[in-house]
């Protein structure tokens, strides 16, 4: 029987959904998140396509549900240090970073954030707004506790200030707090680390633009949000004026051999959604234009969504702009070849929005090597089977939820996360595992107990033990993944993969060459 607990890595919508579904089946869940609040990218969005539901309105109930669930333990502002295979599952070391705020006392009143003298560009607002050195990333943060940023706090960097400590009515500020290490024992791990956004520095046609008026779609999303840096007002960052013309560029770094060769799956729908939201905010007089390579608004309700955008007079131009120049008044001049009319067009825009590609999140490769799970050529985690086992990894006990397995929209993410939760919970409740037949077997007569197999085994499945007065290798079939490293390393040919012995391979080769 495995350890009856699940670790969910990542507190975005995938992690939240997976944690809720596992916890509802009566299994203990640890939900690990590296930022001070759960919520992830979905919390940054203003509206979701194609229904234009308010993103936070549908997300916050889930965030509160997961935080208050008796079977869920939230580990926010935590980093994963190490994962070891223990005999019944995994032993996980987690670094709980010091918030310098006593979570049991902090009421989230916000006085400290009001009075803190240090302003820092807000990560949550994508650098468009500011937060304080003591902060909550956004007003609906869960847990609703303040965190002190040790890199910017005046007291922690220069030994002065302590205003928050003096003003906190709950006496929750604790500058003596230290980072803590926690060890967890879990039977299954669900990876839900989400995605990152591509930087455009490497693309000569978009990079190095000396203009604040070229923004990413996520920055526009923050601008659209009523809790964002502009309280929902659409402005040109350079001068704060309302833009009269906006040009969207889709596939920025996507379907691009220089950056992401793959499609980001959601960019077209994001552009259509944001164009419609801009039409609503800027009125019928605004000129809104989407330049695209292909319009891939696939999925239920999305073709109709695209139709609605055309009805509402959003311009669609098939042709990706190449030259972007900044004009003296801060507006931008783009040239785009319109394939439909065969004309080279000049577009003037007050604001240019880059719908940038989706990348694997930072540190995913390191996490994958820690978990010993495979990574695909695109850098996302590889599922056990592309059709039939989409939320499992080849490693028993490790499951995938959401965009860490490849770009997904919110609906696909929640479905994927629920599937991962079901797989994890059913594995734990069954109490036994069904292994693959392809595992290492030791020919004890040939084995001389040198221990090289034990050294190379990534999964700690081989162990040299004493048996009847001599040393001999022994395979734990539950842990062995049949990778074959030991068989290659063994100097006497005593260890082999069942049904994949050297003799069998040679026989196959002989037939193939006949």
């Amino acid at each position, binding site marked *: 029987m495995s350890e009856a607990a699940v670790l969910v890595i990542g507190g975005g919508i995938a992690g939240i959904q997976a944690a809720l579904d596992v916890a509802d089946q009566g299994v203990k869940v640890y939900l690990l998140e590296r930022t001070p609040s759960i919520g992830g990218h979905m919390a940054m969005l203003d509206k979701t396509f194609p229904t234009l539901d308010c993103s936070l309105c549908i997300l916050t109930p889930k965030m509160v549900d997961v935080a208050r669930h008796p079977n869920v333990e939230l580990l926010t502002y935590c980093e994963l240090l190490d994962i070891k295979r223990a005999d019944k599952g995994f032993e996980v070391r987690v670094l709980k970073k010091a918030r310098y705020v006593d979570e049991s006392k902090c009421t989230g009143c916000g006085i400290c954030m009001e009075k803190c003298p240090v302003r820092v560009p807000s990560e949550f607002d994508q650098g468009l707004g500011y937060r304080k050195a003591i902060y909550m990333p956004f007003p609906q943060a869960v847990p609703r506790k303040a965190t002190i940023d040790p890199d910017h706090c005046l007291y922690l960097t220069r030994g002065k200030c302590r205003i928050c400590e003096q003003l906190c009515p709950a006496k929750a500020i604790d500058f003596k707090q230290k980072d803590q290490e926690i060890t967890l024992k879990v039977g299954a791990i669900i990876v839900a680390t989400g995605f990152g956004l591509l930087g455009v520095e490497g693309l000569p046609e978009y990079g190095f633009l000396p203009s604040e008026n070229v923004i990413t779609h996520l920055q526009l999303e923050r601008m659209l949000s009523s809790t964002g840096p502009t309280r929902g007002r659409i402005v040109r960052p350079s001068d704060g004026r309302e833009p*009269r013309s906006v040009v969207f560029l889709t596939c920025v770094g996507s379907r691009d051999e220089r950056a992401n060769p793959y499609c980001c799956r959601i960019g077209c729908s994001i552009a259509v959604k944001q164009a419609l939201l801009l039409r609503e905010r800027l009125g019928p007089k605004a000129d809104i234009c989407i330049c695209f390579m292909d319009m891939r608004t696939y999925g239920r309700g999305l073709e109709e969504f695209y139709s609605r955008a055309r*009805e509402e007079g959003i*311009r669609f131009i098939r042709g990706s702009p190449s030259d972007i120049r900044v004009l003296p008044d801060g507006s931008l001049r783009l040239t785009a070849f319109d394939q439909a009319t065969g004309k080279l067009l000049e577009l003037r825009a007050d604001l240019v929005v880059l719908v940038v590609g989706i990348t694997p999140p930072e540190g995913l490769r390191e996490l994958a090597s820690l978990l010993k799970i495979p990574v695909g050529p695109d850098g996302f985690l590889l599922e056990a089977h592309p059709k039939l086992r989409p939320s499992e990894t080849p490693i028993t006990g490790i499951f995938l939820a959401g965009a860490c397995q490849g770009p997904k929209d919110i609906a696909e993410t929640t479905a994927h996360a629920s599937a991962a939760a079901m797989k994890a919970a059913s594995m734990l409740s069954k109490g036994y595992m069904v292994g693959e037949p392809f595992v290492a077997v030791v020919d004890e007569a040939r084995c001389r107990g040198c221990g090289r197999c034990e050294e190379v085994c990534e999964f700690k499945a081989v162990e040299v033990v004493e048996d009847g007065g001599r040393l001999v290798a022994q395979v734990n079939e539950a842990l062995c993944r049949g990778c074959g490293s030991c068989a290659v390393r063994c100097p006497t040919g005593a260890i082999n993969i069942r049904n994949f012995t050297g003799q069998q391979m040679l026989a196959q080769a002989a037939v193939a060459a006949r």
Partner: protein
Amino acid sequence: MRPVSITDLMSMARPNEELKEKLTAFLANSPDMCLQCARCTSGCTAFELLELKPHEVVALARLGFLEELVASSTIWDCALCLKCVERCPQRIGPAELLLALRNEACSRGLEIPEGFRSVLMTLMETGMAFPPRRRPARDGRSYGREEVGLPEVRMAPSEVALMALMELLGGA
């Protein structure tokens, strides 16, 4: 009118949004809805005659480059078979757009092809686009209306009807 932020860099032309609104007002669907599937062009009866293909006409109208269309000979080459109207998946109907463009060209007093002019003259004189002619039958012989017992057609239109028609078409 929304601000026009597009320029055709080859002719330095700007889209004419006002004209676009006027000419597309009576279409079942605006050319904005066009997905450029080019089904209209794929089945076009007059394909070989057309300098600009139907889907290109719609694309130009969509962007608002209508001035060059009004002046183009393409709009007069359409056979009005209406296949494109029937088959357009977005119900735009390029043929109807071409009719709107012809009307605009006429109202501007632009040169229209000779064939159309002679049809127009016949219409004015007889009240019909084509006067009744003898038609060949299966036996190889030609028959006139009176030979098969059909009543004679009244040729000259009444003054009143002509005036009403002119008014409907918006003047000379």
